[in-house]
């Protein structure tokens, strides 16, 4: 069974989340303090973490950073504020997605499903983007013989771009394909993750050759062998 770790200091909300998620067929582990997350995470090894930003002990952003140091597990932040600072901080700390309270539980479950799904794409072909080889079976990417570690979301983002090399993806299109957003709302999510992904895969992230920006529209995959 899929194990979801719910980290929230509000007991009632955590319990309610537990009810909803159990109803959706997940196993749920409730944690109420930030500083308790890491030991329980190591012991339980959950498949996804729902992480509140404001936590006693250790803030959600800090927890997120600590987990990212050890694991690429999908993290969805829960924030009570839609202000830029909170959201961007969480995303930059390594969260894959975020939900602003109060959220629609069915949307939460839908997004979690997207984060939890194994890439069901045609895994027989080898994908290439720029000078990077994507091994869909091993779930890894290789640049010049060197393996680069990506979160599942970053991997999905890269695969989405690589699967249709000629297509220019708008931020909205990426939001719905990679994050499962319907309808697309907050394009900051895309911007932050493209930046994080570039920092990992590009040789020179100031002058990208793998994920190219198309002004005013969005992004597209770089052509193999070309250098911008």
């Amino acid at each position: 069974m899929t194990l979801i770790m719910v980290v929230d200091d509000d007991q009632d909300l955590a319990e309610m989340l537990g009810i909803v998620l159990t109803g959706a067929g997940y196993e749920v582990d409730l944690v109420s303090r930030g500083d308790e997350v890491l030991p329980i995470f190591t012991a339980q090894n959950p498949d996804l973490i729902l992480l509140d930003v404001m936590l006693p002990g250790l803030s959600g952003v800090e927890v997120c950073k600590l987990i990212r140091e050890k694991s690429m597990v999908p993290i969805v932040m829960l924030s009570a504020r839609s202000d830029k600072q909170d959201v961007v901080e969480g995303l930059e700390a390594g969260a894959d997605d975020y939900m602003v309270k109060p959220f629609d539980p069915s949307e939460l479950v839908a997004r979690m499903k997207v984060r939890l799904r194994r890439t069901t794409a045609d895994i027989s072909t080898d994908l290439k983007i720029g000078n990077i080889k994507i091994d869909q079976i091993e779930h890894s990417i290789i640049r010049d013989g060197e393996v680069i570690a990506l979160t599942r979301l970053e991997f999905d983002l890269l695969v989405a771009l690589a699967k249709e090399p000629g297509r220019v993806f708008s931020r909205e299109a990426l939001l719905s394909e990679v994050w499962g957003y319907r309808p697309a709302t907050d394009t900051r999510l895309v911007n932050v993750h493209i930046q994080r992904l570039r920092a990992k895969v590009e040789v020179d992230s100031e002058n990208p050759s793998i994920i190219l920006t198309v002004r005013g529209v969005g992004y597209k995959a770089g052509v193999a062998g070309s250098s911008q």
Partner: protein
Amino acid sequence: MKSPLNAFRSSLVFRVTSTIVGISIVLVWLLGTVLNNQISSGIFDEKLKLSISDAQSSARNTQIQLTFSQYQDKAALKLIFADILSVPPQSFDSSAREIAVFSDEKTKVRYRFTGASNLLNSNSVPEAFRERTKNSKNTEWDRVEMRYFDEKIEPGIIVGHNIKISGAGKYEFYVLFSLTQQNQTMSLIVRYLWVTGAALILLIGIITFFVLRRLIAPIRNAARVAEELTAGNLELRMDIRGRDEVASLGYSFNEMAVSLQQQISRLENLSKLQQRFVSDVSHELRTPLTTIRMASQVIFAAKYKFEPIVARSSELLVSQIIRFESLLTDLLEVSRFDAQAAVLEIEEVDLVALVRETIDYVHPSQDRVIHLWNPENTILVDVDPRRIRRIIRNFITNALDHREGKSIDIQIIESDNEVSIGVRDYGIGFAYTDKKLLFERFWRADSSRARTTGGTGLGLSIALEDAVLHQGEIDVWGERGKGAHFVLTIPKFAGGTIESKPLSAQPD
């Protein structure tokens, strides 16, 4: 360098100093004139007194001389006259003294003689004065020009006497005294007066200037400090020296500055408190609301198990929680504007694509109610897409609410620096007088009208704030029964302003 007129207008020191110098020039000039007159008339009177007595004694001597010689012959008389005229060329005060003698043409004179001493031209004696002297028995005097044969002319005093010698005849005897010496003295005095006057004026000017500057320095200081305070440097205070009136000005000024600073920091604190409060309310309300919402949806999902009344209640519960949520979101947005905490997050986006997506979001059905003109255009703009999307969404939901079954037209028109988005419906419209009220919070066109959608009543006021944040404007046209037209115009580039509007709200 400032022009003098400008300096006069802008500098109190300059103005007061020049006024005082002007007044002292007039006073010194008046005083100098009076002094000059007094001194010159004094000197002249003294000279005249001495001249008259000198002339009288000369006349008396001549009379005696002639009386003694009345019986002598012409040759002897000639010698006597020569002797009379051969006076030394200088008088008591070493200025020229000349004598002129005329014999009377009318009376019979034994020895006719007309002559003047030294180089004096006898026409120096004016005819009018001669007439006066001839008819007078006393000493006569007047001012005169002493003309010499060597072309020299000197101012002088003439004193005339008649000398009558029985048997010998009647003579006019004139003594002329040069005033050169006195004039020299006078011009010297006048020069001293001028120099003294000029020095006095200069001194007054300089003293006034420095005293005023000293007096005005604290005022200038106050002005400078006030400017700094205005610029936001609230810590600055005036320097205070002594305990005079100027120091008390300084004390009052500094007290004012302190009170201003306190007021400002109090207001700043209030504003910060307000923002904190909004933020806290946001957090505190949102968490329980999330729980409630999830609970309601769990109940709603199980409604088929309930009796019809409970099932319906669960429906109402869910829809009202969603409405409450959007109301809370809008309220928080409004408080963020009120606290001036709203910030733009500028991105370059294709406005046409943004409108297209917004239409799909608000009205996903395919029944072609909304017509977007030129949907294939690309118009790149620097905007906060979240806010622009919110404005467009608001326009479209309003149009959908009021369209009365008719279609909706959306136009996007650009110029070089601006872009306008117009949402036009042909529904119930609104009264022209309501135009301003549309943007007021919680205002509704017709309170008796049932609400078809769960609008919060804050949409347009938020839209207006969002537009203003973009340096943009919203224009509205509406008429009862003919529909409404909402036009948002924003600058295409960040930091720009609107100079013209590509689309007018007024329909053709």
